[in-house]
């Protein structure tokens, strides 16, 4: 059993990482451990439990800024924001289902470190766009701060961006400062039924290009839609395209009307109001529309939206969902199959990446979880890792760098 170390203060964290450097120990960094299993497997001599670094440090709703401990539970944070009619605009995903487990929203630090982004990402930006600053201890065993607590800031290098999405391989963050935004008053969704893949992808791109501020654009194939908890999505036995409109009630009505006028009239349409709308986008965000079977395989593909139809045609998944107007595709296979990975990886060769999220161990161990990087970029990634964690103490191997 791996020993778990739980520092109680930033100084103790510093001591732990310095000690690991001196003793050739390695640390598997975790908050609540809900995302262990995302990325490459980590073999470390010790578990570094960050859960002590929890709690709100400073929240000024009128400044749209919040500083908090990195291990603050996502649920606590989202409740606090909801009480103040605010939100995290990047809509962090609950990775539980995608990783084949129960729902588990984890910590804000975990969400930041894996760059966990929901359906609003194509419009509102990613986790990194909402991280204004942080305090951390690098793999060198040195404490540092980066960024600040104002949005408009170009003072020095933007290490917040580097740390967001670094899977805890460069530094262990103790405190984060986030940009928060007003939550929408209303959330409606326009549903368009029965479109084939190509016209659906084209319509999503067209809707993204309207001035109507569509904040979610997802497409679910017919047999996948049958797995939805929302009856409007589940019961028609047709493919469903969802277009989310959020904001002030008066504006939502106006924009929904404008979108309907864009359609030719040939399509069958419907609307999701508040509760159903929220439920549908949570399913999209957390991949609950896809099955969760023993021995199945889940890929996450990020590519230019115009490539979506071709990627799906090449990959022939058993189930799939397109999000971000086609920029994000979740591919699900009921079982692993020789050659599948090759096809998926090749489908994004013209631009984009495919990440293996869930698979039987033999497949996971046989191929890189992340899309292999071109040589020049791979070299730079390795040099960045060596600069922040020269002895490979933090989450060794997790990003495959």
């Amino acid at each position, binding site marked *: 059993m791996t020993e778990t170390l739980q520092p109680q203060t930033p100084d103790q964290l510093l001591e732990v990482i310095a000690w690991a450097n001196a003793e050739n120990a390695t640390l598997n960094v975790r908050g609540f451990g809900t995302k262990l299993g995302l990325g490459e497997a980590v073999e470390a001599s010790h578990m570094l439990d960050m859960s002590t670094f929890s709690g709100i440090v400073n929240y000024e709703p009128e400044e749209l800024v919040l500083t908090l401990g990195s291990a603050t539970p996502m649920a606590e944070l989202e409740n606090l924001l909801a009480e103040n009619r605010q939100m995290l605009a990047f809509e962090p995903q609950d990775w539980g289902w995608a990783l084949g487990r129960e729902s588990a929203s984890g910590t804000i630090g975990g969400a930041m470190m894996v760059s966990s982004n929901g359906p609003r990402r194509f419009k509102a930006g990613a986790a990194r766009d909402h991280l204004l600053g942080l305090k951390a201890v690098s793999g060198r065993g040195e404490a540092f701060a980066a960024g600040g607590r104002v949005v*408009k800031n170009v003072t020095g290098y933007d290490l917040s961006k580097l740390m967001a999405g670094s899977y805890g391989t460069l530094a262990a963050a103790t405190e984060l400062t986030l940009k928060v935004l007003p939550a929408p008053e209303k959330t409606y969704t326009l549903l368009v039924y029965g479109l084939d893949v190509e016209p659906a992808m084209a319509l999503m791109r067209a809707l993204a290009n309207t001035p109507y501020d569509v904040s979610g654009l997802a497409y679910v194939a017919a047999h996948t839609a049958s797995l939805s908890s929302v009856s409007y999505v589940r019961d028609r036995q047709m493919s469903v395209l969802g277009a989310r409109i959020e904001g002030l009630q008066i504006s939502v009505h106006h924009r929904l009307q404008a979108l309907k006028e864009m359609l030719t009239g040939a399509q069958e349409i419907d609307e999701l109001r508040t509760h159903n709308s929220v439920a549908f986008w949570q399913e999209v965000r957390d991949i609950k529309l896809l099955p969760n079977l023993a021995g199945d395989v889940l890929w996450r593909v990020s590519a230019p939206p115009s490539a979506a139809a071709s990627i799906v045609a090449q990959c022939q998944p058993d189930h799939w969902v397109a999000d971000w107007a086609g920029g994000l595709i979740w591919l699900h296979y009921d079982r692993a199959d020789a050659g599948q990975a090759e096809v998926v990886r090749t489908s994004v060769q013209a631009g984009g990446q495919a990440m293996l999220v869930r698979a039987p161990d033999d497949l996971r161990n046989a191929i890189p979880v992340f899309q292999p990087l071109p040589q020049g970029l791979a070299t730079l990634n390795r040099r960045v890792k060596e600069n922040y964690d020269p002895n490979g103490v933090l989450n060794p191997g997790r990003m495959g760098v």
Partner: protein
Amino acid sequence: MTIIDVDHDILAKRDVLISRLEQILPSDCLLCHEDQLRPYEADAQTMHKQTPMAVVLPETTEQVSATLALCNELGIKVVPRGAGTGLSGGALPLADGVLIGLAKFNNIVDIDYDNRCVVAQPGVTNLAISDAVRDDGYYYAPDPSSQIACTIGGNVAENSGGVHCLKYGLTTNNVLGVEMVLMTGEVVRFGGKHLDADGYDLLGVITGSEGLLGVITEVTVRILPEPETVRALLLGFNSCEDAGACVGAVIAEGIIPAGMEIMDRLTIDAVEDYCHPGYPDAEAVLIVELDGPAAEVDYLIERVTALAEENSATSISTSQSEEERLRFWQGRKAAFPAVAQLRPDYYCMDGTIPRGKLPEVLARMSEMAAEKDLLVANVFHAGDGNLHPLILYDANVPGEMAKAEELGAEILKLCVAVGGVLTGEHGVGTEKRDLMPEMFSEADLEHQQRVKCAFDPEGYLNPGKVFPTLHRCAELGRMHIHRGQVPFPDLPRF
């Protein structure tokens, strides 16, 4: 100020350098005579000037690559430059360095509406990107006030902002990819038309890296559909504090306008004399711009009007036409040249503060200016707390420029002291380099420099900018490892 010590051994290599550059570049891409170098002696931060050994104006990525590889081989420093509109001295040449200008990289490579992006060479101006897609109903959101001249490559290097950052973000939130040539001459692409970073988010640190990591040769930016409606309110107040309180009230209501700009009395009077925008007779003017669907904008105009009344606005006008909206903005856009009429020179600062600290900072700033017997005009992006105090001085009066610089530094220290930052959108460059320790500890700065060490370990690219002390990477903060100590006896472990 000393930017960085001149290396006389390098100066002695000038003839070798020039003859080698002649082999790489067409003759019209290489400038080396004193009169040709003069136009490049500074960017828009003109307090300090320096001509480089040579100016290189390449036309292709291959020429950029060959130039950098040559300089790397000869151990010669390189300073990249876009249009030279930067306000922090980021493109100030080095006497023993080569200046590489990207002005000839001025083509738009690809307009891709399907993927809502434009691929442009770095010398394309910010405005030219919006111009290229405007007829089809799109635009590029970040709009620095120099947008007619500044280049997209420079925007990426500086992470430029503009008046619409509050709603649409800075450059970093709108860049999807870059092609960059490293100091070794190697060409690397970061990002592209997809949204997720490949490996570490290096694009995120390249944006705003001020030319210390590589030379950008292509940029992919996100474009947006133009909003259905744009309207503005022009509000007068009895003080900047009242105007600032109104800004806070708007945001507290959950409204994120496209822009919120405040000008103080001195600025208002200056712009009235300069271009007569018809501003109200007030101590402060606040412009609030709202964009989006017509129904939403009309509704929000009413809400903001009510908030302005509650917050003691002395006058409220609402734009009823595009002409009127542009008139509201005319004074704001002309603020810098208008203020320049008041005194021969002005020095533009760029700190950002938490919005709530505005009254405190304004009051303290006017005290500090009075102590120095200088005038400060205030123009600011109030929505995101980004201040642009314009310190008025006359460089021909002995000692006045030094006094203006001192006051500028004091103002920036004040911004940091109240929880803000040294620069919101202009960059650190040479100008604020030595103030960095006000905001960051030595360890913080060393961790920033780690990025530099990954990209340019020899430190040939744009040294003397951003970092007050540029350590040699090999010596940078050697790790102190103490073996054999008893590890943390008090630590919970299980």
